[in-house]
């Protein structure tokens, strides 16, 4: 059971124009920097990207937007990105906005073989348009469907050749649920360890959800809002 590939160029083999990708991360935290770099380099286009955010102008998914590689974004929040705004207002980019909790649950459902579920989020708003409404316990809910992707690309802190993953801090976010929902799931990790090094009791994503893994290089891990206090 050895799922190790050499690098991000190898890892993204098979991703083709027009495919649907899931990309982990919240803001710029926990995004698969190496694979995004390879997608930029290979100029794969016409992509549908499922990602909570769309990066900033010159980092994260913003890099794919710059090159017009993305046809459609499925996200919950897409601010902080001028190029995104320009493409969207010009009708060059389709955007499907989804409540953040529904986005997370729809990914998990996709990975867990649950084709649809009811949630109260979005009832009475434009999010509910065209969706089935049903009352439970006197409260209206809307039926949301599962999301899956041709490839899910996630970023973890540590991983092993079995594909077992451990995330760090809030860089976990959407990565575990998207790892579940990819037909093929690629994990890039900061540190690839030997089999047996990770404590079986402390693994966040069991390797069964991961098909390819590699140790990434040169992580920038850019901070979007650096808020600090002085030591005095």
């Amino acid at each position, binding site marked *: 059971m050895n799922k190790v590939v050499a690098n991000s160029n190898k890892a993204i083999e098979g991703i083709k124009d027009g495919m649907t990708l899931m990309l982990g991360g*919240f803001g710029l935290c926990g995004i698969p920097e190496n694979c995004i770099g390879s997608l930029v380099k290979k100029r794969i286009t016409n992509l549908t990207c499922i990602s*909570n955010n769309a990066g900033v102008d010159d980092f994260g998914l913003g890099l794919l937007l710059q090159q017009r590689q993305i046809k459609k974004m499925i996200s919950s929040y*897409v601010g902080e990105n001028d190029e995104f705004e320009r493409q969207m207002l010009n009708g060059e980019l389709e955007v499907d906005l989804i409540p953040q909790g*529904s986005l997370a649950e729809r990914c998990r459902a996709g990975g867990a073989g649950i084709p649809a579920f009811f949630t109260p989020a979005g009832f009475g708003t434009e999010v509910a348009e065209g969706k089935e409404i049903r009352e439970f316990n006197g409260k209206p809910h809307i039926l949301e469907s599962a999301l899956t992707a041709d490839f899910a690309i996630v970023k973890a802190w540590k991983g092993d050749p079995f594909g077992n993953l451990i995330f760090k801090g*809030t860089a*976990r976010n959407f990565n575990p649920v998207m790892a579940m929902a990819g037909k093929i799931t690629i994990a890039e990790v900061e540190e690839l360890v030997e089999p047996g090094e990770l404590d079986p009791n402390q693994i966040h994503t069991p390797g069964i959800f991961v098909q390819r893994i590699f140790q990434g290089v040169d992580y920038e891990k850019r901070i979007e809002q650096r808020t600090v206090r002085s030591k005095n």
Partner: protein
Amino acid sequence: MKKELSREPFVQKTKYQNLGMLDKVGIVKRIAQELQDGWYVNLGIGIPTLVANYIPQGISVEFQSENGLLGMGAFPYDGEEDADLINAGKQTVTLLPGATLFDSATSFAMIRGQHVQLTVLGAMEVAENGDIANWKIPGRMVKGMGGAMDLVASAENIIVAMMHTNKKGESKILSNCTLPLTGVACVKKVVTNLAVMEIKDGAFHLIERAPGVSVEEIQNATEGTLIVEGEIPEMQLD
């Protein structure tokens, strides 16, 4: 094990100034009075975040950030910031003792499953039936609802922190929202620069005035149905 954990403020405290109506700090100080011991609280981006600075003495609450953490602490010291540790506003933060980290699905399980006792968020408009609009202005760039729709659809206890009127002086406390909704019939309490109002039975019920603000001033600034019963006390902020 019963020792109280130290809780440092999220931001530097700024001095509250009595201006005849409340500034942002006044609003969040008033909201902080609503906190109850043992509550888990989700604070929205912007003004609501400041509530964390004014936790009443002897009260222990935990802050949930929907990107995946409970037990959010102050901003890190300069030079100690960690790119892998941010809040839902993408600001670098720290963890308090007892903090936990989790994925986005678990985070919204907490929210949707009503394990969070209080949600504080901003709004562009609130209506007398409890509707809220805070995510979209047609014709302008749409940034997305983030976690707001999940929060307002599920929270049992939602307090909105907002200005009573817009920059043109038009009321944002309405009979009906004019902007696309974030959620329906969900807001229970509104704290503005002028007043504290409860929403029930399809109307705003005035319960407190900002220091130096008259009931008439509040009525004039309120487009929605405002019920005023008996003597309306001033907020006690300090």
